[in-house]
């Protein structure tokens, strides 16, 4: 199991999405997943091995690294990407449920029975709510992770040197982070794409609600 398995799962979501949803999926796959796999993972690969403290005290570097990097950026992004794509699977599951229900009815009542859903993939009724809920979850996940990042690494900043006084370090020692500038650039990039994805989701939510209100107005009129 690796990222390509998730990508195959997500490709099925595409056909039930709006145009905004397809753009969101393209942004997630190209600018978040692909950048994460081909570039960001390598930058953080020697994160701990090149974290150097100005002391020969054994254990000091380990403790300081753990203090300043409780969860590595890379792991947080992996979690964020998995959680942000999961709500889309709700929509796929709902459509599959509708198709199964229709199939069972056809088996029970024959081919000429009344169709429950003229188009199981069309966002009407319950599926509209599922889709809207999935958008809300996606926004919530992205916002939560951005907040976690901001709390753990203030202003998404990665300093070159950190001052550490954790035991067993003998005094306040200087510890040097590996590739801080490159990491900072990639952090900003991933934050920017997360914000873009949040905006796309908000636009999609607005579009769905506005379209629904407009359709209802036409029906009443």
């Amino acid at each position, binding site marked *: 199991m690796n990222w390509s398995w998730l990508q195959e799962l997500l490709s099925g979501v595409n056909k039930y999405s709006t145009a905004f949803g397809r753009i969101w999926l*393209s942004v997630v*796959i190209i600018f978040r997943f*692909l950048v994460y796999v081909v570039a960001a993972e390598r930058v953080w690969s020697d994160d701990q091995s090149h974290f150097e403290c*100005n002391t020969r005290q054994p254990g000091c570097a380990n403790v300081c690294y753990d203090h300043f990097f409780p969860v590595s950026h890379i792991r947080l992004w992996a979690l964020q990407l998995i959680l942000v794509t999961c709500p889309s699977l709700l929509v796929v599951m709902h459509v599959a449920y509708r198709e199964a229900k229709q199939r069972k009815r056809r088996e029970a009542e024959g081919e000429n029975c009344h169709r429950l859903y003229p188009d199981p993939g069309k966002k009407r009724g319950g599926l509209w709510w599922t889709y809207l809920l999935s958008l809300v979850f996606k926004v919530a996940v992205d916002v939560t992770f951005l907040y976690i990042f901001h709390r753990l690494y203030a202003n998404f900043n990665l300093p*070159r040197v950190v001052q550490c006084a954790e035991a067993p370090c003998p005094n306040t020692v200087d510890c*040097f982070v590996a*590739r*801080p500038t490159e990491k900072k650039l990639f952090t900003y990039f991933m934050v920017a794409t997360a914000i873009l994805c949040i905006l796309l989701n908000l636009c999609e939510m607005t579009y769905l609600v506005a379209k629904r209100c407009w359709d209802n107005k036409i029906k009443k009129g």
Partner: protein
Amino acid sequence: MDWGSLQKVLGGVNKHSTSIGKIWLTVLFIFRVMILVVAAERVWGDEQSDFVCNTLQPGCKNVCYDHFFPISHIRLWALQLIFVSTPALLVAMHIAHRRHEKKRQLTSSEKVDIEELNKQKFHIQGPLWWTYTCSIFFRIIFEAVFMYVFYVMYDGYQMPRLLKCSAWPCPNTVDCFVSRPTEKTMFTIFMLSVSGICMLLNVAEMCYLVIKFCMKRKYEAGVPKGTFFFHSCPATRLSRERGGAEGLSLVGSILTFEKDFYQISGPPSMAYFKNLC
């Protein structure tokens, strides 16, 4: 999720591209992505671990490496390739949108072979011409921007053997040695040359599209409406067989160029009917 998935997406765009576009895509994947993955990444693999400074001061090496290499060549190339491939996705999305619209129009009235619809080739005309041209324009811009960023960040394209560093906590100006500088310089020049070739291909493709459009407009302006264009098209052959004006009346419209002769017709201002051939 890796370069292979990007290749799959862009491969779909390939069949709707011009010949120059197909060459560009081939050059991109063979001479840039593949070289990056199978060779360049190995060369830069030990860039930090083998970056050695002439001091025992802890942290000096880290700080000096960060000072001289704010972002690694490999990562810049990966970003460059991603950004340069992205405009082609605009074309892929436009084609997908057209297919979707066609599916919606056809499925209600007639039985349609979805496979056939998915395999159908769209000519670069109408709004798709604009999307395609814009995508080429953005590709050129992204290539130029990244080449400039490389030049500014690394003060030229050569990798020095020795760097002098006096950033804190280095006690004084220390000598730091880059690993494999010659090999890295060779690869940098190679990637730069291929970037340049890709840019030239994009410029050539754009010129080709614009010249075709101008020629079409000129031809349209020169040919009065109602004139029939004699061609090797069977419909005109048939009309010629039937003879004179009577035969011509069988072909009741201005013909477009044959499908397998011209791929690009230009923007929507031209009032051509569908090719009857």
